[in-house]
């Protein structure tokens, strides 16, 4: 399956990209497994991805580590919001 991963703010800077396509073989992951997979690839991004304050949205809706992912999903990782 293929997932689109997006990063914002500090995570975007750490990742060095706005977005990437991740090809996933085997059983569909949940958000937590995807996050750990991404974190293991790069230390700077990994530290930010493992932050307890991290927020996740799947297809523009807030999600949790347990949220199951399907082929074609867009998964966005970002820090706590600070608008206004």
């Amino acid at each position, binding site marked *: 399956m293929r997932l689109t991963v*997006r990063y914002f703010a500090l995570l*975007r800077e750490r990742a060095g990209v706005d977005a990437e396509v991740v090809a996933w073989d085997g059983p569909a992951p949940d958000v937590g497994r995807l996050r750990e997979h991404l974190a293991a690839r790069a230390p700077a991004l990994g530290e930010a991805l493992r932050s307890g*304050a991290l927020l996740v949205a799947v297809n*523009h809706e807030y999600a949790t580590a347990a949220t199951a992912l399907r082929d074609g999903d867009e998964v966005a990782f970002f820090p706590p*919001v*600070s*608008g*206004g």
Partner: protein
Amino acid sequence: MGGAGAMPGSDGRARVQRGPIDVAAELARVTGGTRRVGGVVVFVGLVRDFSQGHAVTKILFEHFAGMAETKLAELRAAAIERFGLIDLVVVHRFGELEPGEQIVLIAAAAEHRAAAFDGCSWCIDELKKSVPIWKKEHAPDGAVWLEAHP
């Protein structure tokens, strides 16, 4: 906030934009088409030149295009329902903003002032918690992403 997606009928009343906000135009938008409005409370958030003991030269606002608009529309609908508002407009800017510039406008229209004050206040508090927008504060000695602010 529920997963209702884009709210019907927002019609430009919950949006993100780069350019300045025309306060008079938004006031007209929120009261347009009815004579039932007894009061409108308008909140405009501005960039300060000072934050937590240091100078601020500019703030960069980044937003999650698509999700930010969806969450603003959900917020608007929730505020209208919760406080019995006649209408509400919420506009947030993105990009680089300098001290003195507008960041956000919320205009809440109601039959009576209490609901307008309460709805407007609730809306800005919730916006700061739920809408995917981030600020990077630039100071003379560097820039930092803010993770929480009052």
